[in-house]
């Protein structure tokens, strides 16, 4: 069913921090997520069910707000990669921590995405968000054509423009810092993933050992045999509990620090993309300025117009970007705080 999404700004009618992804239902190959949110008016909740495609729909709508000034300066909350019921090794690698555990880390990641969108001053105004969170019917599934984020072309230009020197020191620093931070976080996340994977392997090995010990139990009257069997049974129990401990430790790690690192890593990627867009705008502006200088008098006025447009856009973008960057610091801390505080055992 196609929903007409108006481009007018609207106010979100739910509490942003009340949004929870409570459940995930598996039906063959499709996963459906149950989302619950509290009404602002305080008189109840919205229960909606959405698939991953619905999330993508929402994201597309957010991306396509071409007429909102400075939209390019927004750090778009990252949406996790598409989950698969029978995941291929490549997609598992892509999902990283989110592929481990049952669905809990993944649901948490989706939840964070929605909360960040709903809390964002610019993004929450998009009608699509309201529709997504409150409408009992599924939002439209058709792809929105106008998309300012054509990833393919970006990849090629990235090489050239990434290193373009900035006019603003604040942003230059931020870009450099972001580059370093992105690399570090990604490495840390990968290494931690290795740790968790090994913990799981140990849990499995303990399980095997425990089973093997059980096989050593011999029936018999012989006191020696009985003593040996007793010892084996006890040890088998110990290893069984070690296994359980390891499993829960690994699970905990995934749900806390693992998730935190993953969110952090993806958020920094999103910031990097935003900074890159701004840099592109800067390049555009500089090109426009050059064109104005080089233009013949006939074309000069037109070039001047283009330049002005580029300037305005750039200013808006930078303005929004600066705000975003400053608030980023407030964004990432809660992740780590939650991670560290709620589960540290290795």
């Amino acid at each position, binding site marked *: 069913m196609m929903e007409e999404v108006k481009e007018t700004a609207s106010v979100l009618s739910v509490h942003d921090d009340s949004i929870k992804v409570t459940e995930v239902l598996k039906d063959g190959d499709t996963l459906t997520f149950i989302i619950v949110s509290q009404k602002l008016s305080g008189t109840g909740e919205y229960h909606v069910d959405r698939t991953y495609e619905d999330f993508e729909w929402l994201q597309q709508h957010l991306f396509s707000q071409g007429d909102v000034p400075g939209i390019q300066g927004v750090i778009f909350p990252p949406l996790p990669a598409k989950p698969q019921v029978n995941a291929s090794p490549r997609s598992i690698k892509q999902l990283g921590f989110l592929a481990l555990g049952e669905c809990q880390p993944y649901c948490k990641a989706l939840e964070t995405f929605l909360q960040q969108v709903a809390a964002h001053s610019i993004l929450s105004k998009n009608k699509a968000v309201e529709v997504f969170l409150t409408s009992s019917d599924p939002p439209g599934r058709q792809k929105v054509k106008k998309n300012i984020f054509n990833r393919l072309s970006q990849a090629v230009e990235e090489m050239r423009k990434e290193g373009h020197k900035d006019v603003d020191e604040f942003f230059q620093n931020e870009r450099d810092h972001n580059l370093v931070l992105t690399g570090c976080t990604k490495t840390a996340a990968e290494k931690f993933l290795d740790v968790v994977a090994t913990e799981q392997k140990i849990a499995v090995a303990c399980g095997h*050992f425990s089973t093997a010990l059980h096989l050593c139990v011999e029936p018999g009257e012989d006191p020696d045999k009985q003593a040996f069997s007793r010892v084996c049974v006890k040890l088998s129990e110990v290893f069984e509990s070690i296994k359980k401990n390891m499993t829960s430790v690994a699970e905990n790690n995934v749900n806390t620090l693992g998730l935190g690192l993953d969110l952090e890593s993806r958020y920094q990627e999103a910031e990097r993309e935003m900074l890159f867009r701004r840099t592109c705008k800067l390049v555009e502006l500089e090109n426009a300025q050059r064109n104005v200088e080089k233009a013949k008098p006939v074309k000069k006025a037109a070039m001047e117009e283009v330049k002005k447009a580029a300037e305005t856009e750039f200013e808006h973008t930078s303005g929004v970007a600066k705000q975003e960057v400053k608030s980023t610091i407030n964004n990432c801390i809660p992740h780590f705080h939650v991670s560290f505080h709620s589960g540290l055992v290795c």
Partner: protein
Amino acid sequence: MKSDSPLFLVAQDLTLFCICVNVQSQPASLAAEDISTNSNGPKQDSLFDDDPEDLFAEATEEVSLDSPERDVLLSDGPSPAITPITPPTSVITPRIGHTHDDMFTHSSFDEIEEEEGGDSFDIHISVSDPEKVGDGMNAYMAYKVTTKTSISLFKRNEFAVKRRFSDFLGLHSKLASKYLHIGYIVPPAPEKSIVGMTKVKVGKEDQSSNEFVEKRRSALERYLMRTVKHPILLKDPDVLQFLESSELPRAVSTQALSSAGLLRMVNKAADAVNKMTIKMNESDAWFEEKQQHFENLDVQLRKLHTSVESLVCHRKELSVNTAQFAKSAAMLGNSEDHTALSRALSQLAEVEEKIDQLHQDQANADFYLFSELLGDYVRLLTAVKGVFDHRMKTWQKWQDSQMLLQKKREAEAKLQFTNKPDKLQQAKDEIKELEGKVQQGERDFEQISKTIRKEVSRFEKERVKDFKTIIIKYLESLVQTQQQLIKYWEAFLPEAKAIS
């Protein structure tokens, strides 16, 4: 709730460990059983001990002083000079001519056992200070063997000697040639490792060669302790000489590529073939049952061994991964501007590093305690099976001489009808000799069966004791590791809370 649950889980496991550590309280009852069955042991040998004990008890000593080739056991501690350098008979062949003395020595063994049955076993051997002697391919590792004891057998209470690996192998081969074929379970020596030793010889001072030396040192120590725990082997002059005398003749026959080595291999093959062809009429169900039991045990222990090895491997991996994560967390901490977060991350990195060390230690504990123990027992079981095989061979010999006797009797009967008095006399003499052999064969068979029964029960008791001790040690180490982990994390918690 979330902040408590992980620690709570660990605490839960600690209580389970404590319950298991209380398994320790069991030995009290088991020890009582130990002593009672021990004293029962010698008394079981009622069959023919009464006679030899009276007749030959004194004769034992006489015989030993006169004929130095007999490796006879004396409790007076013979001077090592009597024991000649054993010719390279590391091949396990039954010594037909000497079965007389073996029987005598058995009775004297029993005497000694009865006398000292109540004595507490007080000897401790440690192998330490591996030292590289020499250079290049002729280099070897010398180990210091320290003995601390209060047993009167030894001249002093505490003494040390230097031995090399081939000395240990030499000791084992001597003991094996003396005792294996009469039914005693001689603990096997640690295995040779050409690769490992070559690395050490060449002078590679790295982690793996250090590990190799440590592994070997530990194995040698366990080997010696097992050997002296055996009441008979403890008193063997070769063992005493090994532990006490500063100079030991070099055991050349243990080299893999020597002529003795080749002879060993050939005989091993021959033995394997023989084993397949001997069909024994087992009159005693006990032996059949025990053999089956040991087969099963072998399978189980091997499985356990594989499991433990994989566990050790994973733990080592965990330690490596934790170290890498610690490094990356430190880097992240350095690049983060937010000071509290940065500090927290650096602290996290430090904690993880300490944990990595912990994991490493735990891996070592897993390995040295468990894996080696299981490996030792798998090898011991080979010795046990060998002893059963010897019993079969003894039976075979007895049967063979019986058949030969039968044939000779038939031949004699035939000769009765011919008129050849000297041939007849010869036949009669041969028959007499054979009759003696048959009787001896039967006695040997009875003896070896009896010895095996005793040895098996001793082995089983040792097995339970060994496992229990190791398991308790292991559990204690586990508990310690967990407690240490908790301490580390508790120290870190305030840092984490301080981030916001």
